[in-house]
């Protein structure tokens, strides 16, 4: 689904369908948005969703977006690509750190290395509290967040959805 040209650059509240998609993605990894958090949709060539924990940041971002030069605001919650919402790593990590996300897989050092290189992992033991969608936050033994993955119980395969090595691979 393409973004709305007339609203390009504007930050707006999500419509009911968008909100349903976001909530469904959050439920998919055993996550809940804490009370007081607000979501806004950023209309671009695609749609990005930002979460706000602070009402002042929310208000300023919304008002500044009228000038259509907001590039980013708050916490990256995910994006709609081809009509489907994909949960963002920033919000997932934020919720994990707040204890609001339960679908987690813990990996060892060698798996950590491979995952941060963007690779999938094989032969993992099934994580506890695995959500029905299989979406998990991947952490190492020290509790550092490595990325997001999808765990397939039958094969024990963890597909890399996004990982923190992305920052380097992107060149930033």
């Amino acid at each position, binding site marked *: 689904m393409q973004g709305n040209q007339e609203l390009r650059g504007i930050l707006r509240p999500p419509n009911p369908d968008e909100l349903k998609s976001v909530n469904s993605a959050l439920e998919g990894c055993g996550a809940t948005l804490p009370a007081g958090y607000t979501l806004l949709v950023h209309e671009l060539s695609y749609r990005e969703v930002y979460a706000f924990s*602070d*009402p002042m940041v929310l208000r*300023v971002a919304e008002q*500044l977006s009228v000038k259509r030069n907001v590039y980013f605001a708050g*916490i990256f919650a995910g994006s709609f690509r081809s009509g489907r919402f994909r949960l963002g790593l920033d919000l997932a990590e934020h919720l994990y750190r707040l204890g609001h996300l339960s679908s987690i897989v813990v990996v060892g050092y060698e798996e950590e290395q491979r995952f941060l290189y963007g690779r999938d992992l094989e032969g993992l033991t099934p994580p506890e509290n695995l959500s029905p969608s299989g979406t998990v936050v991947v952490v190492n033994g020290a509790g550092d967040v490595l990325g997001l993955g999808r765990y397939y119980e039958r094969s024990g395969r963890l597909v890399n959805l996004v990982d923190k090595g992305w920052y380097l691979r992107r060149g*930033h």
Partner: protein
Amino acid sequence: MNKEQVVARLVESYGYSPFFAEKLVGELGEEALSAAEASEKPLKKAIRINTLKTTHRELVQRLGGKGFQLIRIPWLRNGYWVQAEPDTPPLGATHEYLFGYYFVQSPPSMYAVEALDPSRVKQSSTWQQVRAVRPPIYPSLWRTGVLLVAVEPKRGKVAALRSNVSRMGCTNTVILQMDGRSLPSLGMVFDRVLLDAPCTSSGVVSRHPTLKLRVSAKDVTEQQNLQIALLEAAYSALKVGGVIVYSTCSYFREEGEEVVGRLADRGASLTPLGPAG
């Protein structure tokens, strides 16, 4: 050694253009030779710990376990010199770096933020309690009740800024892709503004050796005009009693004292920060 001899030495032994050499000697006198000598060596590496995500103790221990030796920079709250490092991983590619536990940053850049003294900004939920900065980012500015507005006009830089904001786990920021000269058009009033102004970079020749020959009188004039316009915009958007920190990496008076001098004409009180530490 007289002025002409110092200029000749900078040109012949260090490869500066006559224009740059004369400017440097005009600013520093005979000390220009020491500055040129120092610029032949790579800058000592330093990191800033992101206290939003980790602690000094934990990071020093973790990086120490990988062969990095960190020495606290006594005049900075969260800065460390990298005294020794292993062949691998590089400082900008450790897992701790990817996790956003630190930022590779020069001490003067860290010092500019400390001069801004964000800890003294009152927490508030009003529109006026906001600040504007340009990258690089400064995680310690982020806390509840404080908003940071980051302004950057260039697409490539604004994308890098966003990546850093994400990596560092900063949640109270709004990034605007716009020219800082338009800051007053936002209709906002800021408590603090850090203007990390574009400049000729004449003070970081060690990082960009080709500048020795490239910096021209035209560059200095163009940068000065831009710097004045940015500073006037920042001043217009500053609340009464607010603070601006003006920062460049240039030796030249035209990009420093002459620029901030314009604000004195408008009634601003100027405080030179002097050398750190």
